[in-house]
């Protein structure tokens, strides 16, 4: 199955892309997707920010199981205001 991943701010600049579609295995969690992306994009490996995870525009935990067509965002520490 496939999910859409959007990148913003520092992560967007790291990855060099604001949106990708990625194949994942049935039952993958959002935490596992992040580990897979770190393998795809070596520049993500040293990232040790406290990321939040958003799926379909809601914050979720690292163990959240993804569904086909989900929109996933790894949220760097926010700094609006």
């Amino acid at each position, binding site marked *: 199955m496939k999910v859409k991943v*959007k990148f*913003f*701010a520092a992560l967007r*600049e790291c990855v060099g892309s604001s949106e990708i579609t990625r194949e994942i295995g049935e039952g993958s969690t959002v935490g596992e997707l992040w580990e897979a992306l770190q393998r795809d994009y070596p520049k993500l490996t040293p990232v040790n*920010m406290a990321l939040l995870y958003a799926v379909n525009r809601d914050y979720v935990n690292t163990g959240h199981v993804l569904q086909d067509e989900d929109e996933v*965002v790894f949220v760097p*520490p*926010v700094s*609006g205001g």
Partner: protein
Amino acid sequence: MFRVTEKSLDLHELIVFVSSPMAGAIATFLGTARNHNSGRRVISLEYEAYPEMAERELARVGEEARRRWDVERIAIVHRIGPVQISEVSVAIAVSAAHRHEAFEACRFAIEELKKTVPIWKKEVFEDGEIWIGTQSERPLNPATEPKNG
């Protein structure tokens, strides 16, 4: 009114939105682009948002404020894209029958916004730029590392 926009912010529009004959007080907050941070000269700011989720989270902040205090109306608008020094990056307006509630809810809204709403600020210096909050003095992307940070 909970909105993310690329246009310059108009506080008057928010005031009109929250005005009510039931209200005795309107508290507002404007975040403005400051020409310095941590002792460094800031040239300009740039904001980026996950817009659909940001507007949803702004509304959630407003609802939470309304749940906690007896307020009439709340408006929160955040600008994205480049913001020049002295320009407004975020505008909040809260009306209430009494000033205590207006102040508390307005204060809550900006504090909560800074914790949860997916919006990011980049500070641009003369010799580099940095995404605020993403690292402790160590830029994620070495290409953007300031030369004398």
